[in-house]
């Protein structure tokens, strides 16, 4: 019965979002306040029914209702409860339901927390989000309902979830990522509402900015978690593969990063307005493109679910309507946008423009590399794939140049700055970062390495300029404490995020230069030395998990005779589908990871193929990602957003 309630709730949710898409929009066009005021309750209703639907699916998973096709295909009675529940989004239908649920959640949040918004603006924003909701909920109902049943007879037990997905990573990675993807729909809705109402002023940027920053932070967090998950779960220590689906999440993040910066300029200085609007449209369109790439299976990818051309076509249509519609409105309305102020060559505006150009170019090159195989295939010139070297060759130089500009932008003021003052502020950080960058490869790696020199110098440049600027704020301050509280949260957020970029860059530089890895055949008692650590293989034993059996190896690691740690990597065989799964074991540390994974048994279990890794500074990659997202979230707590809200509340009362 519950699955039918879920399906029914989904249908009601669809009806509500259709009404939300139409009524407040018409109300805003005809200035009918009654119609516009329908937006808020509709957003609430839509969200409630999606929650009901989602809970029904969760209940089906929790109670092992294998008469539901989706549950039977993605769960099994032996699975631990936390994986049963996260299996809700372990496949196509359920992850789409999560997508739709989060979309309605964002819609509700906008309706709840935008008290300062004029009624017609709010009506338009919610209405546009209702349109997106209509598209996705009807997609769910028409092509991929998770509530379909096996009737009259159904399997006694479920087919089990892919073992790779039976992991903590599945619990956190997709929800975070979807929060980001879908969150850009808010920025998109704000942009379109601004275009439709013709109010593309600084106030619009101020409303849209906190939402965009939150979405961007979630997306960054989702990508970071995905990278970390792939690292420990796939068993060969890679943290980024330039897989089409990874690229699909990176592109909206890059455009989103550009948007976050461009919104700041629009809010503070009233320039780049039409550019900001365009970025908001593209950030969301790229999120949809990402969804299309994952769902349609047109590209070879580790993330591909068994695919269905009909679904791909549906999403392609949604994408075409979204982009076509929004760009048409943009083309009609954007020419009337006027800049409110001017600026000179050496100003923060120009440097932020440079940042935007770089980020957009990066997004375009990633897009090109990702879609190039599709393009060539469509032209009938053969099947190709574009390898990681392409992305590295294009991405790294652009990222490096952008980081240099990032350091300069810190020292530059709005509107105009004299060259002398910039040089005066920056010469010291420049010298410091170059010198340390030069010394580092000798001190750490024992010899000069050009890539390490460049990577470290650029990263230290970003950090030292931020620190220099921070210290200079205190030059005329009476007490440190008052100054600390005077600085805005946006400012702290910016600093944290920029340092995050540098931390990630340091991680990438060092882990890709100084990593060591060895694939070995090891019998009991064999040892191997790697980066000064001695790994001794002490054989395997059989252990029993809740729904798998595993060969668990014991590997003792020592350094100069001192015991460091003992690792227990496993080779699991899951009971239901007899799937093999490598479970690596990692001794994590801030400055290095020791990573051990089992390959396959050789000579009937007499020896094992073993892979050992030494990964210096690999944690910095994700630490930087977390810092960037944290920076994005900090800006949301800026006083000026709160003040606006209180004032709005008073006006409403």
């Amino acid at each position, binding site marked *: 019965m519950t699955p039918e309630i879920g399906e029914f709730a989904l249908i009601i949710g669809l009806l509500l979002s259709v009404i939300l898409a139409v009524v407040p929009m018409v109300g805003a066009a005809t200035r009918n306040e009654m119609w516009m005021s329908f937006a808020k309750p509709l957003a609430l209703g839509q969200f409630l029914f999606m929650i009901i639907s989602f809970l029904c699916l969760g209940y089906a998973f929790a109670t092992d209702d294998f008469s539901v096709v989706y549950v039977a295909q993605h769960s099994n009675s032996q699975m631990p409860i936390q994986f049963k529940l996260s299996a809700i989004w372990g496949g196509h239908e359920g992850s789409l339901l999560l997508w739709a649920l989060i979309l309605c959640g964002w819609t509700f949040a906008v309706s709840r927390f935008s008290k300062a918004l004029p009624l017609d603006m709010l009506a338009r924003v919610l209405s546009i989000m209702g349109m997106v909701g209509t598209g996705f909920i009807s997609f769910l109902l028409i092509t991929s309902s998770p509530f379909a049943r096996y009737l009259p007879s159904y399997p006694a037990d479920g087919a089990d979830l*892919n073992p*790779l997905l039976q992991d903590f990573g599945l619990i956190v990675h997709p929800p975070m990522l979807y929060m980001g993807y879908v969150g850009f729909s808010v920025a998109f809705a704000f942009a379109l509402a601004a275009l439709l109402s013709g109010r593309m002023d600084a106030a619009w940027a101020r409303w849209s900015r906190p939402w965009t920053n939150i979405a961007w932070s979630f997306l960054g967090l989702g990508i970071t978690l995905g990278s970390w998950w792939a690292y420990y779960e796939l*068993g*060969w220590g890679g943290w980024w593969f330039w897989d089409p689906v990874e690229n699909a999440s990176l592109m909206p993040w890059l455009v989103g990063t550009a948007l976050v910066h461009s919104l700041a300029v629009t809010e503070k200085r009233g320039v780049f307005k039409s550019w900001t609007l365009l970025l908001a449209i593209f950030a969301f369109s790229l999120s949809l493109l990402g969804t299309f790439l994952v769902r349609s*299976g*047109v*590209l*070879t990818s*580790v993330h*591909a*679910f*068994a695919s269905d051309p009909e679904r791909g076509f549906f999403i392609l249509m949604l994408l075409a309507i979204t982009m076509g519609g929004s760009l048409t409105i943009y083309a009609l309305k954007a020419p009337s946008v006027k800049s409110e102020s001017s600026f000179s*060559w050496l100003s923060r505006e120009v440097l932020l423009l440079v940042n935007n*150009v770089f980020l957009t*170019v990066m997004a375009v*090159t990633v897009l*090109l*590399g990702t879609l*190039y*195989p599709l393009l*060539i295939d469509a032209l009938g010139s*053969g*099947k*190709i*794939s*574009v*390898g990681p*070297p*392409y992305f590295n*060759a*294009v991405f790294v*130089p*652009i990222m490096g140049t952008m980081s240099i500009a990032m350091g300069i932008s810190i020292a530059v003021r709005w509107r105009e700055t004299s060259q002398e003052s910039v040089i005066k502020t920056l010469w010291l950080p420049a010298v410091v970062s170059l010198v340390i960058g030069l010394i580092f490869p000798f001190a750490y790696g024992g010899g000069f390495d050009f890539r390490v020199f460049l990577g470290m110098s650029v990263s230290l440049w970003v950090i030292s300029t931020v620190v220099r600027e921070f210290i200079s704020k205190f030059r005329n301050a009476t007490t440190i404490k008052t100054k600390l509280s005077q600085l805005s949260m946006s400012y702290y957020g910016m600093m944290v995020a920029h340092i995050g970029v540098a931390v990630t860059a340091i991680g990438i530089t060092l882990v890709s230069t100084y990593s060591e890895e060895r*694939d*070995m*055949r090891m019998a009991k008692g064999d040892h191997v030395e790697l980066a000064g650590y001695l790994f001794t293989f002490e054989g395997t034993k059989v252990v029993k998990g809740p729904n798998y059996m595993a060969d668990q190896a014991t590997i003792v690691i020592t350094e100069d005779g001192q015991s460091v740690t003992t690792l227990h990597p496993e080779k699991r065989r899951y009971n239901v*589908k007899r*799937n*093999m*799964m*490598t479970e690596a074991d990692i001794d994590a540390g801030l400055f290095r990871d020791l990573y051990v*994974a089992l*390959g*396959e048994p*050789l*000579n009937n279990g007499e020896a094992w*193929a073993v*892979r050992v890794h030494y990964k210096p500074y690999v944690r910095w990659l994700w630490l930087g990602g977390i810092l960037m997202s944290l920076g994005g979230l900090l800006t949301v707590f800026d006083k000026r957003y709160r003040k606006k809200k209180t004032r709005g509340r008073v006006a409403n009362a």
Partner: protein
Amino acid sequence: MTPKRKKRLTIILGLVFGTSLIVGLVMFSLSENINLFYSTSQIANGEAPVGARIRAGGMVVDNSIKRSTDSLKVQFAITDYEKQVLVEFTGILPDLFREGQGIIAQGTMDANGVFQADEVLAKHDENYMPPEIAESMKKKQEAAQ
């Protein structure tokens, strides 16, 4: 030239220069780093270039996996159900690698007609078949009918 025009000219020149630099970089990297896909029939017919980095895909042939006893070297055959190609690889194979499973290997053809793989990919969904293999097998079936 007025200062304003001079400024505009600099912007335009800068943009043109930057764009051509990036386009050049992209084109160069693309031309260096695309890997063509070959089916096993194409390879067996000698269509694949020797020494160039390519991708090959097919189903792992039953009972074709041979392991070396003292190293991680492994040899197996892949097929598109028409012709077979031998593949050699040293290292740890992915979990889902097994006989009858569709795989994609990256590497080069050597002079003896053996594919020397430096990377073997098996997808993580057992029902999933890489589109390249699915298509090349579909073509075979159509040709057979």
